[in-house]
């Protein structure tokens, strides 16, 4: 178990760094895909098998395909011309390090065990389904409505109207 955790951590952290360090956005996207699959691996280690597979299907299989698809469509001049300067990098890094040190101190004290290990609470499809359709049934239905709204909204935003006056004429 330990070896898997170390391996996954190495993959997840290096690919996360790759996402923000690669200049070509497509390379960033590929790094993010590796990262998402690594996080699915963590889910599997934590006995959430259903979530691990859904993570791959939804994130790697749908969202990231969409992102790469858009990157391929807008293929021209995607290399970043300028980045936000050294000042922002230094400030955000300092705050990030402070955040990491502080939070891991809190968590390290309080969650140093592996917690309750009960076999009946594994994240199998049946167990998770029971929770989703009883306790969270309203949120479940609401998320269906949200997805519907997102589909319609995306179609409206991406649709091209044949001749739209550009420039000062019309507010979109």
């Amino acid at each position: 178990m330990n070896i898997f955790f170390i391996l996954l951590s190495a993959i997840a952290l290096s690919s996360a760094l790759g996402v923000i360090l690669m200049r070509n956005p497509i390379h960033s996207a590929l790094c993010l895909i590796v990262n998402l699959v690594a996080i699915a691996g963590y889910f599997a280690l934590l006995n959430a098998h259903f979530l691990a597979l859904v993570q791959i299907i939804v994130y790697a299989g749908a969202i990231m395909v969409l992102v790469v698809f858009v990157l391929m469509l807008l293929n021209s001049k995607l290399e970043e011309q300028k980045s936000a300067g050294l000042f922002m990098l230094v400030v955000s890094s300092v705050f990030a390090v402070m955040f990491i040190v502080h939070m891991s101190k809190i968590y390290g004290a309080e969650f140093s065990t592996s917690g309750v290990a009960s076999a009946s609470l594994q994240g199998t499809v049946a167990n998770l389904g029971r929770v989703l359709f009883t306790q969270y049934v309203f949120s479940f239905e609401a998320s269906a409505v949200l997805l519907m709204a997102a589909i319609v909204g995306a179609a409206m935003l991406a649709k091209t109207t044949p001749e739209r006056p550009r420039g000062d004429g019309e507010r979109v």
Partner: protein
Amino acid sequence: MAGVGVLVLFVKGFIVQQLTLGLASFCTWVERKGSALIQDRVGANRAGAFFEVGDLLKTDNVLLQPIAFVVRTLVLAPTLALVRFLGVLGVINTLLNDALKALLKEDFIPEGTSPFLHAMGPFMAVAPVFLAYAVVPLAPDFVVAGYTIRPQVVELNAGLLFLLAMGSLAVYGVILAGLTGNNKFSLLGALRASAQMISYELAMGTTFATLVLVYGSLDLYEIVMAQAGSVMNWGILHGTGIVSFIILFVVGMAETKRGPFDMPESESELVAGYFTEYSGMKFLLFWLGEFAEIALFSLILTIFFFGGWHIPFVSLPEGVWWAALVGHAVLIGKVLFFCVLQIVIRWTLPRFRYDQLMDLGWKILLPLSLVNLVVAAVIELSLK
């Protein structure tokens, strides 16, 4: 105990991998020779077809003559006869010569792309398909030396979701190939292919949900066992099984980007689509992935709708090794039938237009699969 488990796992994995490669090679051969039959050509029949024993091992040494005679009649002659037979059938040409040729070819990498990503393209096209075989059960359980062995590499309780996950990862092979090709044909082919795969995945996911509802399980082994008994228990005859079967069959043809759905590689417009810039073994890997995917879809169809290893009107004894072997042979026989069916359709029907393909996916198959889900749910409820 743990050691035995790991050993059994490795043996299972090895066998399944060999089976995958075997099925893929069978499809390659049917593709070459079957297409020739359909188009009234002869097809591959040259390599190895003219081997003769002739003067081989002829010697003047009196002492060696009997040995040479024995070797010629008992070893060389039968071997060469077999080689001639396979050569006329085109097996040597398709499986041996083509692979050797591809190995010896120059590995061309287009300028201005990363060689690593270029190599990852065919890898990502093949690896998910091979991984998906891990959750497919290939024979009934059998008992050896007190151990019950299930002929399935991973006994995952969410095997169906694993199939979906691997199917969605296979898109990246296409995308990487299109991106690293560094030309317009690759890019357009990859855009077409990935849009096609994503569109048809919707109908596939909905139909999988229908099947989960009907069988009440995500484990492929349990799905096969639910179809035991008579033919009436087979998935295709149960409820709306025939509709699910038609949807999954069409989706399978489209997901493998073959048959009438091969717009991504339409030769007349896009040279070869997303694998335009690939040569040698990397090119062959794409083909291997494609044929492995055909065989995988045939396996899925057999397991969901045609009773897996169950034989009509015959029930095999449980837990015996020979019953497992017979079951496996029956399963593979059904799978080969669907492989050949897909290849015949591919060489018979003309290509769709791209808008027709999108219409079929979004306006026909997706609504049909949604209606199918509701109807199947109603039927299941009324049967209870």
